[in-house]
């Protein structure tokens, strides 16, 4: 079963704009990760935020985590056409090693 839910399911923006995707999850977590997937194939790890962290940055990516609301957001600043992909959040439970993924947000960045 899917642990997380991303919102929105689909997002279309123009190059240069910021893209924000949200993720909600259901159970206690050890960490939360964001992955990117192009063309329905392999996933690329973007960023990991631990349960005791509130915000993390990596290049044009900014991730926030609110464990009280069981939610996270991924912000991509100054988007580029090459950012077009599906983005997934995934959680590790405290006792598990498998990642639990949401259904993803499909991002389209148009030139």
């Amino acid at each position, binding site marked *: 079963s899917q642990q*997380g839910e991303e919102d929105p399911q689909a997002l279309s923006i123009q190059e240069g704009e910021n893209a924000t995707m949200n993720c909600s999850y259901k159970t206690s977590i050890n960490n939360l990760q964001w992955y990117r997937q192009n063309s329905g194939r*392999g*996933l690329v*790890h973007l960023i990991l935020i631990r349960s005791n962290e509130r915000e993390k940055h990596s290049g044009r990516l900014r991730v926030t985590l609110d464990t009280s609301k069981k939610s996270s957001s991924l912000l991509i600043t100054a988007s580029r056409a090459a950012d077009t992909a599906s983005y997934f959040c995934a959680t590790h439970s405290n006792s*598990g*090693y*498998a*990642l639990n993924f949401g259904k993803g947000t499909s991002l389209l960045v148009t030139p």
Partner: protein
Amino acid sequence: GAGVSQTPSNKVTEKGKYVELRCDPISGHTALYWYRQSLGQGPEFLIYFQGTGAADDSGLPNDRFFAVRPEGSVSTLKIQRTERGDSAVYLCASSLSRLASTDTQYFGPGTRLTVL
């Protein structure tokens, strides 16, 4: 190799046939995972290996699915008597250490299985 590799990249088979999907993890990674991704969904966990042993196979949907990792490196996912509902992309991932709950998992490109 530099990353996780999977073969074949695509597999088309007929209902009722047997298939094997191979995963070659990053060298030195002790943890290996198999996931399945259906169209429009996120990946769903199938099985986790720590070394040679299957530490958690709770995600395998039924006994037609089986996976091995005999030497603690390459893994093979085996599906018997395939059904059309098995059609999906099968993803393999590996991570470095025994601290699997905190490690980054690195994914391969996947095998797209189509059962006709």
